[in-house]
């Protein structure tokens, strides 16, 4: 690949937080018209580095040169003016405004009378940007009514409308279907060919070679290496990221299935679930595959008593049970690791110990009084067991990295000694090292005679970890496969609603 | 580090603000050796008490005392008035002149002042005699107008003005307030011998102007025939006046107020109100301070000093 001129140079970037060095003398060089991957485990410093580039966080030391000019980037506005635009994983859109209003938010074209907005021109220009991207979205549509992929396109159009030279995308594909990803990549290539530099953060290793030109690996707040992707093997990158070689991606250990722990028959929720039946046995890991919106999370919530149901019966350990609240489900030994750990799994403002013990506080308290000694002892054991990286047990979980937060949620259910575990996207947004640890843990749980229902959108994970695979399509179970007979093609076939092979 | 710097900054700011207040207050009390007299009124957002404050200020320099004037933010906040007086006792003022927010609620703190050897003069609203006696408290004097008498004067005037026939609405103060109760008793006693004088509505508007407006508006809805009104204070009367104007009935309802606030006097002059009872708060403030100074020189005041009532019409 020929040498293109550097568009962005970040040199010696350092950022300290009280007690922590987040970035230590990091260099990053990005060329005009390339897709530059930024790899690293959670907590490696990628997000901080990108926030500095976007003007959202101020660096303590270092220089940033954009297009030959030294840039201070003291605020997001300055960054915008310098041609930097960022699309966060959680979009920055105002849901009740229209597409055009969002694209031009803060920069509305003025009408003749000061203070009024030239609506027609705004919508016309928005339309133009969207057309350039090759997407069909009405500029007067309300953002809230759009799908995730469409909202993302609005974000891209917004970036284009400020003539961004550098576009940062943080996990842009995490919520997209394969079809949508293909379309997104097409748009990214269009932008690249127009000379835009794209900095791309993702945990999905398979995307590297599909779309990337170069990659920079970070670890522990430092720059480790920058490579051309054409000449670099995936395993080498993983080794660089983790700092150690990973022998096995999916360390599946098969355990013979035991007695039935959970039986669900005809579970119904109008418009969402249409008569779901399934069983879980001791020692079994059952994968639950399906497209976004197929009802997997809804099924998990219904079993767990978090959402009301309109029909169906549930047996736990052979006895019929009425799971009408999470409390009732937990009492019978269910545990639910939610998809969104920040919104549903953790109390971010509480410390590691309190979160670990939250679901089983009765065990550590007598007459309503909590024993900190007992609590700490169990939290200490579990965090050591799960290798949670935390300075101490009183660290607030908000300060932990994503992988470590997920481990704390796991610790919560281990503390509760739950036997029937529902894991909803257990490795989403987690670095490779932590992923493997979570897989190993799932193995261990199965070996101990527990049952795991694992919802996942990552096909290799489903195929690699499950004893049995269920595929959902529009609120129904569309197919069931044993680990031996399942293939990616068969599962996809079911998931999109074609007849099972 | 940044984090430890900020609290400091805020502290310094707060301290600066305080020090500023301290300096501003410095030239009033402390230091000169002249005795310090504190006037504690109900609130300083009622013109009645501002007049009282002005009367007191005018008297203070002549009497050779330093004056501190304090009040709660709300007229009904008896606990806050109590706190203010407690703090002034701590500050060791030489004498207290108090307009009680609550006749009974003032008693415990009068007892406290007694124990600290600080004489207490009560102005405007009496301290409840029975409660005071039960608690063993003492006041040096009461300086004020006879509210009963004032109510009576108002009632007699209305009887004469209406020729003995009227459908009357009454706006009361806060229920249980000695001041308001006495005014109403006086008013009712004055009209009770005229069978044509009928009270068709009597509602509390809690001494407040906006409540006077609302309550009277409601009364006009319920009793469209109302043709006269007595308000236990001018603020309520002035509120009602606005309600009458808004209903386009100015001049058709005869209004008698109480307190003779400047605004009410003006209303009387232009004919919007028929009369208001003048209590002369400035004199109360003046006499209160004068007697405080004389007590400190060893003189003994009479138990009651009456400030004469006039009808402004």
């Amino acid at each position: 690949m020929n040498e293109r001129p550097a568009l962005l140079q970040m040199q010696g970037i350092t950022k300290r937080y009280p007690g922590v060095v987040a970035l230590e003398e990091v260099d990053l060089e990005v060329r005009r018209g390339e897709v530059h991957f930024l790899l690293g485990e959670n907590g490696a410093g990628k997000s901080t580095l990108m926030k500095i580039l976007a003007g959202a966080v101020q660096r303590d030391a270092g220089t940033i040169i954009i297009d030959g000019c030294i840039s201070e980037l003291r605020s997001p506005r300055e960054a915008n003016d310098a041609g930097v635009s960022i699309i966060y994983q959680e979009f920055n859109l105002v849901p009740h405004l229209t597409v055009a209003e969002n694209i031009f938010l803060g920069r509305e074209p003025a009408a003749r009378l000061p203070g009024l907005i030239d609506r027609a021109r705004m919508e016309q220009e928005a339309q133009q940007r969207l057309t350039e991207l090759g997407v069909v979205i009405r500029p007067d549509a309300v953002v809230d009514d759009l799908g995730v992929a469409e909202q993302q396109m609005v974000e891209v159009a917004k970036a284009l409308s400020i003539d961004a030279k550098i576009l940062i995308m943080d996990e842009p594909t995490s919520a997209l279907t394969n079809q949508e990803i293909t379309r997104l990549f097409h748009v990214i290539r269009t932008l690249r060919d127009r000379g835009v530099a794209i900095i791309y953060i993702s945990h999905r290793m398979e995307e590297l070679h599909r779309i990337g030109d170069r990659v920079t690996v970070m670890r522990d707040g430092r720059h480790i290496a920058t490579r051309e992707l054409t000449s670099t093997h995936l395993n080498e990158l993983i080794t660089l990221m983790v700092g150690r070689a990973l022998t096995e991606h999916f360390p599946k250990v098969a355990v013979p299935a035991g007695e039935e722990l959970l039986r669900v028959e005809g579970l119904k929720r109008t418009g969402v679930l249409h008569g779901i039946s399934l069983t879980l046995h001791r020692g079994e890991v059952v994968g639950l595959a399906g497209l976004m919106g197929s009802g997997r999370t809804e099924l998990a919530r219904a079993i767990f008593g978090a959402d009301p149901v309109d029909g169906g019966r549930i047996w736990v350990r052979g006895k019929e049970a009425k799971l009408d609240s999470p409390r009732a489900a937990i009492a019978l030994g269910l545990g639910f690791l939610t998809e969104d750990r920040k919104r549903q799994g953790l109390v971010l403002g509480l410390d590691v110990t309190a979160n670990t013990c939250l679901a089983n506080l009765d065990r550590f308290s007598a007459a309503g009084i909590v024993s900190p000694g007992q609590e700490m002892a169990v939290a200490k054991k579990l965090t050591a067991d799960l290798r949670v990286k935390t300075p101490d047990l009183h660290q607030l979980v908000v300060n932990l990295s994503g992988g470590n937060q997920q481990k704390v949620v796991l610790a919560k259910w281990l503390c509760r000694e739950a036997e029937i575990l529902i894991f909803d996207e257990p490795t989403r947004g987690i670095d490779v090292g932590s992923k493997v640890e979570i897989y190993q843990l799932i193995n261990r749980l199965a070996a101990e005679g527990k049952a795991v229902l694992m919802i996942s959108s990552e096909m290799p994970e489903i195929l690699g970890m499950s004893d049995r695979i269920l595929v959902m399509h529009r609120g129904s179970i569309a197919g069931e496969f044993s680990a031996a007979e399942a293939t990616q093609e068969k599962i996809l076939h079911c998931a999109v609603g074609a007849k099972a092979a | 580090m940044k984090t430890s710097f900020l609290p400091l900054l805020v502290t310094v700011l707060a301290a600066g603000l305080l020090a500023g207040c301290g300096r501003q207050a410095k030239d009033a009390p402390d230091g000169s050796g002249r005795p310090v007299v504190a006037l504690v009124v109900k609130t300083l957002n009622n013109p009645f008490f501002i007049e009282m404050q002005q009367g007191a200020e005018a008297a203070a320099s002549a009497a050779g005392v330093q004056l501190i004037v304090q009040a709660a933010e709300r007229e009904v906040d008896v606990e806050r008035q109590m706190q203010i007086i407690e703090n002034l006792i701590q500050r060791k003022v030489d004498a207290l002149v108090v307009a009680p927010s609550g006749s009974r609620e003032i008693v415990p703190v009068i007892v406290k002042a007694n124990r600290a050897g600080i004489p207490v003069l009560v102005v405007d609203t009496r301290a409840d005699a029975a409660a005071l006696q039960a608690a063993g408290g003492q006041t040096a004097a009461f300086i004020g107008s006879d509210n009963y008498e004032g109510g009576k004067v108002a009632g007699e005037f209305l009887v004469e003005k209406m020729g003995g026939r009227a459908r009357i609405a009454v706006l009361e103060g806060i229920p249980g307030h000695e001041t308001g109760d006495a005014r109403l008793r006086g008013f009712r006693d004055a009209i009770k011998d005229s069978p044509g004088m009928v009270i068709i509505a009597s509602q509390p508007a809690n001494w407040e102007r906006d409540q006077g407006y609302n309550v009277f508006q409601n009364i006009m809805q319920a009793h469209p025939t109302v043709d006269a009104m007595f308000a236990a204070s001018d603020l309520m009367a002035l509120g009602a006046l606005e309600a009458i104007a808004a209903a386009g009935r100015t001049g058709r309802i005869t209004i008698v107020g109480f307190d003779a606030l400047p605004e009410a006097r003006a209303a009387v002059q232009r004919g919007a109100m028929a009369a208001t009872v003048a209590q002369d708060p400035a004199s109360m403030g003046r006499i209160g301070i004068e007697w405080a100074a004389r007590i400190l020189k060893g003189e003994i005041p009479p138990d009651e000093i009456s400030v004469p009532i006039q009808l402004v019409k």
Partner: protein
Amino acid sequence: MKIPNRLARNARQFGTFAVFVVLCAVISILTPHFLSVSNLLNVAQQTVINAIIAVGLTYVIISAGIDLSVGSILAFSGVVMGQALGAGLPLPLAIAAGVAVGTGCGAVNGLLIAYGRLPPFIATLGMMSVARGAALLVTDGRPVSGFSESFRWLATGEVMGVPVPVLIMILVYVAAHFVLRRTKFGRYTFAIGGNEEAALLSGVPVRLYKLGIYAVCGGLAGLASVILTARLNSAQPIAGLSYELDAIAATVIGGTSLMGGRGSVVGTLLGALIMGVLRNGLNLLGVSSFIQQVVIGAVIIAAVLLDTFLKNSKR
């Protein structure tokens, strides 16, 4: 490693404490009357009512709620107790009745919020009016006054030189701190305020605990009314007007986040003391009551500014 970490976590409380100390220092320089045992006890007594109400609000606000009705509940509890005393009920029973009325009103708030799914702002706004009206109704708008010496001892008595109300306040704070830090009730309060969904999915009986939190808040307002009534020797149906705002201010100055999930009882005590010391100091200095309001407002804003700065610099 351990101690600096703990220091950093409690930075906000140390900040509040520093403000308190500097405030006291400045006032004692400006006036000689401030730093005497009798005045400090005086300040403590004046802080009691606000401080006790603010404990309840601290719980409510940590649970990401708000309670605007405490001032009215205080009035209602007070007059019910006053009437019970007047009717010749034995002292402990009458006091229990007052606290029970407060707890009951709080429980109704809790029911409306937890089971009726009303926003706390609306439910307690309604209760603010209902309880005030009820207080006026049962008394016909007149204060209930004239109580026995044994009842008044609750306000005027001393135990080993410490005024009884101050003693009650200390007991309430010790208990409230213990409950918040060391019991399930306290832990769940934080969990509900920090992330209600996560608490629910962890099996916390969220609605039951919410009910409990508002009931406790109402009960503490009832307790405050006992002391206030003894102090004034009168139970007024119009007592406690805008006391909810004072209590919210004390809580916020003390570093409890209005977003919920974060806060401390110790901070609230400091917040209430800061307000008490400010009012006392400004009275001692003879500052006009108008300026006093400006200063107190400025302190509230400064406290929340401090909070925002601390939060941002952590990120």
